[in-house]
């Protein structure tokens, strides 16, 4: 079934050849991450320079913003990152391919399944490995659950930052259900490492589908609750609408992706426009809003949660018909042999030993794989020299790109807006700093 996808939002508007791309730009200057204090203001004694972060309640970890304030108004801003740099890319070069799979999850520790997927897809492409259909659909299901999870964390924390403290708990109630599902499948709540090169680490456990289905039934009601609490709340609307503006052109120029880009009126979603897994076989819509403000970013994510729930439902429907099918590729050079074979088959024992100690070899080459993670385009550039370890791994982190837009969004805002803006860009500092 190849579904026709109804497009939400206005007609496409791509920057065409010869289009003045930066017209009406709010990009502050040649360094897009810095807003300078106007010289006239700097000479007066009224500007107060404040360090927001790296230890601050609402910088999502360790983002540091050096803010110049004129009263409550933000007149100067520069973002400083790197406080969570842990050298994942260097570490991965020291690990065998299959051990390295554990690292990407920890990079974006909120959208972990998606990050894991992008690395696994890169390995599989280099290996030219066929993945069984069941694994593909299960991956899609997990990724969409993860997308909902990530958006719930966004919604909870950004509402908390605007003072709606209870939203945090309501969102985490549903998040808890998702984490329970992950635990059921993989034994871990976060950082599941459920995706292997070639398929899945384990078969889908019995009892997963009813649990997942009951979640799918519940989620729309939960979304209604959130909408009732926030969207009908005058204070919430006033705090978010018209705040943190980012034009479509600026968003593209600044390399934005995902919900931030779609909230600026660009109808772009890699799941639809560059389908991976089996996204061309499920029915979903891509929400696009034109305001480019905090409110629209929140709405895009709300709509995406609803759409993701539908994708999860379709995945369950499909997976239930695949009972008993293989969940990992039948390639003994890459995939660990079944446990029971180790006791009977010498070859299996050797394969197991080789894969565990030395690791499998991946043909030499370079590849860039991009998927639509909850935060936007999550890319993975991998170079292999044909050995058992990656030569170079680099992650295109959507949070990294999103934070570059902080200064553009925050021009002329108040302190309180700044918090809303940073929240709406939904950056995960692990992803930004890697």
């Amino acid at each position, binding site marked *: 079934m190849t579904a026709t996808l109804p497009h939400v939002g206005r007609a496409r508007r791509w920057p065409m050849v010869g289009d003045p791309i930066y017209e009406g730009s709010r990009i502050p200057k040649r360094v897009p991450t810095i807003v300078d204090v106007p010289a006239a203001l700097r000479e007066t004694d009224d500007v107060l320079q404040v360090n927001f972060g790296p230890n601050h309640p609402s910088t999502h970890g360790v983002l540091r913003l050096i803010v110049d304030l004129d009263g409550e108004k933000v007149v100067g801003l520069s973002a400083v990152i790197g406080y969570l740099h842990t050298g994942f890319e260097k570490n991965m070069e020291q690990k065998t391919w299959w051990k390295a799979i554990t690292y990407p999850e920890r990079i974006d520790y909120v959208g972990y399944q998606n990050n894991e997927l992008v690395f696994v897809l890169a390995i599989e492409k280099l290996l030219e490995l066929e993945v069984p259909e069941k694994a593909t659909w299960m991956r899609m299901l997990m990724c969409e659950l993860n997308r909902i999870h990530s958006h719930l964390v966004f919604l909870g924390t950004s509402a908390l930052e605007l003072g709606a403290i209870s939203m945090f708990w309501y969102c985490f109630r549903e998040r808890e259900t998702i984490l329970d599902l992950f635990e059921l499948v993989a034994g871990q709540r976060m950082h599941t490492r459920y995706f292997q090169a070639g398929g899945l680490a384990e078969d889908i456990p019995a009892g997963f589908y009813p649990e997942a289905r009951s979640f799918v039934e519940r989620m729309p009601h939960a979304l209604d609750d959130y909408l009732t609490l926030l969207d009908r709340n005058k204070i919430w609307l006033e705090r978010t609408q018209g705040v943190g503006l980012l034009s479509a052109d600026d968003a593209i*120029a600044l390399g934005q992706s995902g919900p931030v880009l779609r909230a600026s009126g660009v109808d772009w979603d890699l799941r639809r426009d560059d389908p991976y897994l089996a996204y061309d076989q499920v029915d979903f819509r891509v929400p696009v809003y034109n305001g480019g403000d905090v409110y629209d970013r929140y709405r895009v994510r709300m709509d995406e949660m609803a759409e993701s729930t539908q994708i999860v439902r379709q995945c369950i429907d499909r997976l239930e018909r695949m009972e008993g099918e293989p969940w990992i590729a039948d390639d003994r050079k890459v995939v660990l042999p079944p446990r029971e074979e180790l006791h009977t088959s010498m070859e299996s024992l050797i394969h197991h030993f080789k894969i565990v100690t030395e690791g499998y070899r991946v043909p030499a080459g370079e*590849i860039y794989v991009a998927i639509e993670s909850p935060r936007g385009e999550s890319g993975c550039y991998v170079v292999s*020299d044909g050995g058992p370890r990656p030569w170079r791994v*680099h992650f295109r982190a959507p949070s990294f790109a999103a934070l570059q837009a902080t200064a553009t969004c925050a021009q002329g805002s108040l302190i309180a807006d700044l918090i809303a803006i940073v929240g709406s860009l939904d950056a995960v500092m692990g992803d930004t700093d890697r």
Partner: protein
Amino acid sequence: MNDFAKVPGYVSTTEAYGETTVVVERGRIREACTFARDELGFAMLSDLVATDYLDWAGKGVSGYIGTTAGRDLNMPMTQGLQALPEAKPARFSLSYHLLALRQGAPRLRLQCWLEDGDTVDSVVSVWPAADWLEREQFDLMGIRFDGHPNLARLLMDDDWEGHPLRKDYPLGGEPVRFSSAE
């Protein structure tokens, strides 16, 4: 042969795994990027990666840990490569991953090669998104970008020595900053 021959400073094109890599001359990378953005429609700079190919396809050692003498039966993971990969033209490659926001999501990898100490033109004026990306590669790989408005370290400390993602950066050990002698 293809549409990319018109890219300023064009050197070669390769296709692999459904991806197009266009190698351009190091000195003309900004022109090539401007061309790709304005004429070819690659409106977005997805990513910018530098790779260090020091000791690439060296003496049959996979990765770079291990003995330079090659295979050492007493050391795990030093088994030589089964096939030597192709040699690279220079030590560093710099890949610009471009994306066009149109049907089919075409992607393009613009690549240039440089040796240690070579500089390359900054493309911040083409895509503002390149600001942090270039700073990151400068920070971790030590590649200098000419004309970058604010080429400072991004992820590491400002006074950090060395560029950690280089292959010759020491893996173990850490200089002791405060020893008892001080």
